């Protein structure tokens, strides 16, 4: 496979060969690979420091605290927030659980969500309230009429998903938020885990109350999720965990929580990973936005076009490139098992793609009826890789098709 990509060389994992074969990483909706500056930042912390943050007066602790808080500031700046509005947790799931549990909703709290949400934007709300999911059409676009109908039930929370991790559809979140604001006074909680790696967001311009995302899906290390919350709302949110580091004072009668965002960050965090996030943000910030946008469009066209063009494959999502990221989910026809195909794509051809229900089982069951194959591209991928992926898939499907459809060349 020949690829010419200005960013590819920055990702050392892509130099790896397995069984003498170059790998092609197309599982970017699950997590992205890490560029060298991120790896160096993490390594440098362990090689030159390694101390704990915030509660030490010694030099190493102060340096580590500075680096840690610099990361928070950079993440906040990237989304147009103030630093105290960004809570650093483990992942998007934890961020959403923190909001769901911390709002102190009553047992009958009504929550409106969407069918194409990730499990982490469904299950926390189902646990604390009465959740209704907005329907999607056959291509995964939100049924706007149904959404408006559900809003008439005056939900306390509207849990939105900016971009589906199954269909790749980018929902018109600005319009949805306007509709919510006009219809009720619900708290709006946005899952941006799939969207933010591809396009920037200004949280205040968007007028969202809470927004969750994961740095590992946007070149950062694993173990860092972020929760943005408008400061006055964060101040009212109840912490999910209590313990060391989140209190200013503890005596035998009680305790006084620290200010936001620290009151949500009990215990020692993933210091090295958070420090690595600053390098990820720096990497993203200096990318040529127009070049990146054009590249993403080319990848999207190759992915969607490839899916539409071939028999034996059904695209789960819109049959066009409008308002979507460079991601396709495929249902394999004729009962061809997606998991088995994913293993062979990996071991025989070097293509790393995901199979299964994508942590969005209600949607996948509704649109695909069973397991699927997901191909998610990112900036270090190339159209040639997508074409190579489809050639490999074609070849595999020809070996796995029912006997009567066997090609004459065998």
């Amino acid at each position: 496979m020949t690829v010419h990509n200005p960013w590819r060389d920055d990702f050392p994992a892509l130099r790896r060969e397995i069984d003498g074969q170059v790998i092609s990483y197309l599982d970017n909706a699950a997590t992205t690979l890490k560029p060298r500056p991120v790896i160096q930042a993490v390594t440098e912390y362990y090689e030159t420091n390694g101390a704990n943050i915030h509660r030490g007066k010694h030099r190493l602790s102060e340096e580590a605290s500075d680096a840690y808080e610099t990361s928070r500031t950079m993440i906040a700046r990237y989304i147009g927030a103030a630093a105290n509005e960004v809570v650093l947790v483990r992942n998007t799931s934890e961020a959403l659980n923190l909001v769901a549990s911390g709002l102190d909703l009553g047992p009958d709290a009504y929550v409106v969500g969407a069918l194409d949400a990730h499990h982490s934007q469904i299950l926390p709300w189902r646990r604390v309230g009465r959740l209704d999911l907005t329907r999607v059409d056959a291509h995964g676009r939100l049924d706007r009429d149904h959404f408006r109908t559900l809003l008439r039930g005056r939900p306390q929370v509207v849990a939105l998903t900016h971009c589906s991790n199954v269909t790749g559809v980018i929902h018109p979140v600005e319009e949805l938020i306007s509709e919510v604001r006009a219809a009720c006074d619900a708290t709006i909680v946005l899952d941006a885990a799939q969207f933010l790696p591809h396009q920037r967001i200004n949280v205040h311009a968007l007028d969202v109350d809470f927004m969750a995302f994961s740095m590992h899906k946007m070149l950062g290390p694993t173990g860092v999720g972020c929760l943005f919350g408008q400061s006055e709302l964060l101040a009212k949110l109840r912490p999910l965990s209590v313990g060391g580091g989140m209190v200013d004072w503890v005596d035998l009668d009680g305790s006084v929580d620290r200010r936001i965002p620290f009151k949500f960050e009990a215990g020692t965090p993933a210091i090295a990973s958070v420090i690595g996030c600053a390098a990820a943000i720096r990497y993203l910030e200096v990318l040529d936005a127009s070049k990146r946008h054009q590249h993403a469009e080319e990848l999207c066209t190759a992915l969607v076009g490839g899916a539409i063009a071939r028999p034996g494959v059904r695209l789960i999502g819109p049959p066009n490139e409008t308002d979507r990221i460079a991601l396709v989910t495929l249902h394999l026809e004729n009962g061809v098992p997606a998991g088995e195909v994913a293993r062979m794509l990996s071991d025989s051809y070097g293509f790393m793609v995901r199979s299964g229900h994508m942590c969005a089982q209600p949607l996948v069951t509704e649109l695909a009826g069973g397991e699927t194959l997901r191909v998610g591209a990112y900036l270090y991928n190339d159209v040639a890789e997508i074409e190579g992926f489809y050639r490999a898939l074609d070849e595999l499907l020809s070996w796995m098709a029912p006997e009567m459809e066997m090609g004459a060349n065998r």
Partner: protein
Amino acid sequence: MTDSSIFEDVREEIAYAFDNTVFFREHMQAGRLRPEDIKDPEDFRRIPPTSKVHYRRNFPAGVLAKGYTLTSPNVMRFQSSGTSGDRLNSAILSYDLARRQATGLGVNRRFDELWRPGGRPKICRFAPPNCSDVECATGFSSLADRTLPDGTLVLTVAHDLLATPEWQIVKALDEIEVYQPDLLVVDPTHFAFLTRWTRRLERKITSPRKLHIVCGYTLMTRVARRQIEEFVGQEVPIGDMIGMSELGYLGFECHHGRRHINNVDFYVEFIRDNKPVEKGEVGELYVTTIDDRLIPRIRYATGDHFTPLGNSCECGSDLPVVRIEGRATHMIRLQDDRIVTPGAVDSVVGDPPWMDLYQLEQDRTGTCTFRYVPNTRAQASDGAALQARLADALAPNNVRLEAMDYISCERSGKFQPCISRIPAEGSQ
């Protein structure tokens, strides 16, 4: 079958693989070889060995013979976890599997009544979950979900054997009762664990049919065997199978307790340093399939090591007798460059009645830790003699003993009795 007649079969297999598979033709061409160059065993050894890597990388397009697809009649597909992550996607013709199984079991008279004309034994499998090709490790699957197309029932098994919850054990025992098998195909370590739990739960493992037990997947330690034999009694035949997912039965234990290699359906070589080993020396098993129309394999380096012990056995079988030594990746490498195989370790450990399970682990520094799970028969002084034997066998490396109540499995669910972090040279 004479050596010359089986070598003619090998030559036919080479010609078939060359004419019908892309990978093997290119493999031969890379070595500037053509099938007609291979006239005798010496020529044959000019063919570079093939390995799991080749068959993984080239599956299916490069290794399936012309005329077949993965949905052709009698093609059984599978995905094996492999040992220590060396996984494989592959396929096998069901009748080749049956043929090799019949040859293997043919060395053991106690298994004769298992196959009767017109009948097929009911098989129940209790093995590491990643070896099963069905979702057996969660509580969601039903008995029907875990019944394979050939009727074999796969019992539910946890990935971490010693952490198996009680409900899962009860479910396995209930399903054996309902299914009424003729044959239990088990991993010996897993099955020994099941027998311990069955006693604790005051249950039985029985069937109205005559029960047989075939052990495979990992090395059958004497400790595991003793527990299985004590539990099922003398009436139940137990046989140790030598096998690989991609090949089926490579051999079996005869009714005199010796392991025989199947040299009827395979041409076998025991190789060290690219040369055949002498009787009594450890060598890696290379196999060449005979009459495999789907995925012919030529000089396939299995990664499993054996000591050939000759052809004579009181059981009457002509199949070569071997001692199982284990996989290269599991061998202990000592500072003086000696290599101690898992089979040799098991001989040193023997069958102490006070032990339920053991694992010898060599770390990167070369130090060996022998962890074991003692049972209620254990006395404080029991470890001393074993410690002395192990120290002697593993000298000059250090070895220490640790009594545990838990030892973890590898992620695939397999439990290896012997693992080394500094694998022997030539291991894959």
